């Protein structure tokens, strides 16, 4: 154990694990027993990540572990759930809908696509299968960190979504994650999404936590497998409220000729957002686009760690993350791009730009390219800057007020990313959220 503060949570987790181990388990759980134990032992030895580890240098979890979290919250209050869906749903988005409550599928609130196109079932219902055991075992052996190990040891449910071969989902799928926390709560959902050969889908994730100034810790792990020539557009909107701590590990595996587009929008509100976005290119001729926007305000800490691993020839990856820092906000960007010796004819581009709007805001940016092949095109760029005073003055000199002018310039700064959002409703929604959240901050600053 590496730090004192987390001791009580650490002990609580150990007790809980022991209790679950002793409880009479159903068949599915028994088949995972060994893997759970290995994963927990792994976590137990290493403890929560500490700032002594390179990947956590600027993100100390200590302040966020210091609450008495309930590890076993299951049910939400039915009445409030429908309202939560309404609140979280993106207006004017014509989409299928998958609602999860505390990590489990809520059929009544969902609007799922036809079974011929996609199957969506609870992870619980497949976690005992040989297929899933193999999946989990491989992941634990080769990927992740101590937090994903903790998730592997504890997760109970999530969704398993499979888009059938050759199917293009006719509408996007909106996934709304609802968590209910009548008291401080710790959630560890686990999801798996498979895009089969030649299949195509667009998935939009959004989340909402029902709580009254409680501390809520979500440690989620999602795996995405995109098979040959499959395509997935994946939006993730992180617009949460104070008290919430989000640790999210998204792991993507791409097969030959597949394409993955990710948009991660991290907005002010939550105390902590830590995203790990890990992309493994397992065959040739893949295409990957990672776009990120982070708007950080208050005392928020937003940390994006991305990693793209080129293991085969002729793959293309493109990454653009833009951050706007306000108040005492702190952001971390770490973009790893690995190009292995075999991965010739790789095209890999990365860009990270940061706009600091406050004297107290901080950003720690680290592009990290490790290239072992010689016939490649790779580039990266990273900037940290402020408003151009000439631009601001130009707008003001035309009668545009200072706050409106600043908002315009922030919008302009983010334009490179927002223009890439092909879903109009999502674009509209995200731009409005940015505008709103910036306005709140501007107003509270005065």
């Amino acid at each position, binding site marked *: 154990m590496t730090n004192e503060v987390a001791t009580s949570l650490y002990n609580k987790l150990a007790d809980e694990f022991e209790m679950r181990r002793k409880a009479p388990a159903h068949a599915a759980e028994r088949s995972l027993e060994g893997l759970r134990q290995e994963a927990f032992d792994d976590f137990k030895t290493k403890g929560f990540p500490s700032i002594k580890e390179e990947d956590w240098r600027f993100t100390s979890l200590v302040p966020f572990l210091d609450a008495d979290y309930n590890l076993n919250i299951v049910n939400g209050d039915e009445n409030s759930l429908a309202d939560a869906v309404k609140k979280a749903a993106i207006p004017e988005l014509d989409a299928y809908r998958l609602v999860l409550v505390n990590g489990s599928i809520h059929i009544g609130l969902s609007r799922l696509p036809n079974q011929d196109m996609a199957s969506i079932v609870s992870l619980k219902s497949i976690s005992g299968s040989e297929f899933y055991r193999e999946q989990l075992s491989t992941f634990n052996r080769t990927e992740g960190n101590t937090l994903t190990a903790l998730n592997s040891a504890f997760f109970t449910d999530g969704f398993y979504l499979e888009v059938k071969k050759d199917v293009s989902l006719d509408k996007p799928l909106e996934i709304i994650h609802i968590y209910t926390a009548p008291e401080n709560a710790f959630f560890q959902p686990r999801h798996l999404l498979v895009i089969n050969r030649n299949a195509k889908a667009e998935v939009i994730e959004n989340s909402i936590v029902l709580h009254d100034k409680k501390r809520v810790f979500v440690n989620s792990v999602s795996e995405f497998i995109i098979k040959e020539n499959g395509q997935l557009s994946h939006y993730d909107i992180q617009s949460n409220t104070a008290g919430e701590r989000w640790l999210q590990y998204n792991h993507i595996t791409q097969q030959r000729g597949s394409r993955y587009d990710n948009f991660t929008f991290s907005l002010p509100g939550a105390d902590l957002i830590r995203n790990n976005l890990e992309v493994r290119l397992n065959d040739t001729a893949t295409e990957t686009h990672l776009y990120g926007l982070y708007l950080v305000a208050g005392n928020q800490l937003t940390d994006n760690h991305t990693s793209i691993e080129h293991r085969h020839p002729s793959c293309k990856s493109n990454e653009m993350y833009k951050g706007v820092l306000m108040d005492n906000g702190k952001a971390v960007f770490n973009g790893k791009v690995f190009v292995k010796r075999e991965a010739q004819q790789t095209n890999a581009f990365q860009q990270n730009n940061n706009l600091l709007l406050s004297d107290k805001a901080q950003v720690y940016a680290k592009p990290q390219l490790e290239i072992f092949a010689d016939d490649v095109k790779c580039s990266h760029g990273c900037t940290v800057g402020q408003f151009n005073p000439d631009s601001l003055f130009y707008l003001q000199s*035309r009668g545009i007020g200072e706050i409106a002018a600043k908002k*315009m310039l922030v919008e*302009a700064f983010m334009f490179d990313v927002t223009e890439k959002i092909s879903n109009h409703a999502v674009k509209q929604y995200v731009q409005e959220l940015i505008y709103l959240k910036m306005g709140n901050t501007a107003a509270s600053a005065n």
Partner: protein
Amino acid sequence: MLTIKNLHARIGEKEILKGIDLQVNAGEVHAIMGPNGSGKSSLAAVLAGRENYEVTEGEVWLDGKNLLDMKPEDRAREGVFLAFQYPIEIPGVSNINFLKTALSEIRDYRQLPPLTAKEFLKLTKEKQQLVEFDAKLANRSLNEGFSGGEKKRNEVFQLAMLEPKLAVMDETDSGLDIDALRIVSNGVNKLRSEKNAFVLITHYQRLLEYIVPDFVHVLYNGRIVRSGNKELALELEEKGYDWLKEELKVRESSIQ
């Protein structure tokens, strides 16, 4: 309309304006000329409220309102317009959105009802025609990809859209070819009225052949050293500024 009294301003420790007095009435066009570094552009910037200038002394009044107390956006809303010598490119801010926002904030301040989308479009078209500015504005970022001439013409177009009382044009003629100069000047001439006034900052007499001023002032070393009518501009063109500088030296030494 505009009254400037004993205006002093500096950047950092350097005093740039050293006591400017100027009276501009509605319906008038004033030209301000002068050698490089005399403070012409600084005067324009101070009038528009640029932050890096510190006014150390003097007053500026626009129709009875103290301009120096106002933020740049409020000066614009009160009717001051600065046509920039180097218009700024802002990638990601669309021309149309920019104009719409500016116009609606100005109208709101003047307690005019907001324009509908249709009215706005119509106005845009009319004014584009008026100032012969045919660049496509839709789906383009503010001034981005515009040629030097287009940028200047966009300034005149914005002027037409925002209908200020007082337009200060900072070397709008610089970098324009003869055709563009004629178009820009035609635009300004069409916008001239009994209710507004123009201050043209220029190096060259050429602009004043197209836009005929009522008064010409020579700014030198932070002060207006000579004022006259349009003949003064011709005299300057012929003799250059050295003649004035010499005269000033003689006068200053004789005072001492």
